[in-house]
């Protein structure tokens, strides 16, 4: 299977409660909390689209959107 290519982190600021779970467990330290304690993706280029932030978010506030990949032949 081809590697997923990241398009964007869709973060719902209304739903994010700033618990910091996504920030702490991101293997590439892509995310941070801003001055309002909301998650933001600050090092997008490092993201490997593992989606651990999305799967561990208790508030369903983050979605890792990847570009559609053609499966490797």
């Amino acid at each position: 299977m081809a590697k997923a290519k990241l398009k964007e982190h869709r973060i719902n600021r209304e739903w994010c409660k700033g618990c910091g779970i996504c920030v702490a467990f991101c293997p590439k330290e892509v995310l941070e909390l801003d001055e309002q304690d909301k998650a933001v993706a600050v090092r997008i280029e490092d993201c490997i689209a593992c989606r651990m932030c999305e799967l561990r978010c208790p508030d369903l506030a983050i979605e890792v959107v990847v570009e559609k990949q053609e499966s490797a032949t």
Partner: protein
Amino acid sequence: MAVNDYIRERFFPHLWCAGCGHGIVLNGLIRAVEKLGMSRNEIVMVSGIGCSSRISGYMDFHTLHTIHGRALAFATGVKLSKPELNVIVPMGDGDALSIGGNHFIHAARRNIAITAIVMNNRIYGMTGGQYSPLTGPGMLATTAPYSNIDQSFDIVEMAKAAGATFVARTTTYHVHQMADIIRSAILHEGFSVVEVMSQCPTYFGRKNKQGGAVEMMKRMKEITTPIGSKKKVENPDLIERGIFVELDKPEYCSEYNQIIERAMGGY
């Protein structure tokens, strides 16, 4: 379907505290149902009372929010009348094993095809942090300010002893495992119990100086190990996670249908 197709968006953001493990269980449950490709119409979620039980309000399935500890009794009624539906019962540790302790063991004994998800945060969060039957000795709670002296239940051992035919344990840290286990539990033809070790940073974490949600989740990684791992031999205190029991035994609704057929035989 996308995640948002399974939830009632109008009730979000949900009422759970920042970092509450129950939100992660909600997340894992959605992934499990998504993987199964089940329609929302095929699922009935029945819950009782407590922080955990609020999950039924957030999921866009057929849902019943019933009374404390009695979710499994209501669920039994639903399942017997419509056995073709998948019935999921999310419960808290207090709801499942204290107030609903008898319903829990008897549902397990009957082996009725219901999926019970016990979201174990070891505390009564909604009412202010009273100790539950899962708090454990030595822990602090609002009602145990000098430490708790009650021994705790082991959900897995209890479910096994009561006759549940699918018994598993996972944590909110191990989200891939959680989704996989919930998926297998829903597919299982019989009573399935899934204990999900969850964190209550507001009451359990703060009272017991375990830090916030992140520290509590790191702890869950440290204190658990896959079933049968080498680490368990070296450190017997580790809590095992994975599927403990997966048995094929007569399911209650199927047995009941046979009785109906037999009883109607003469007519």
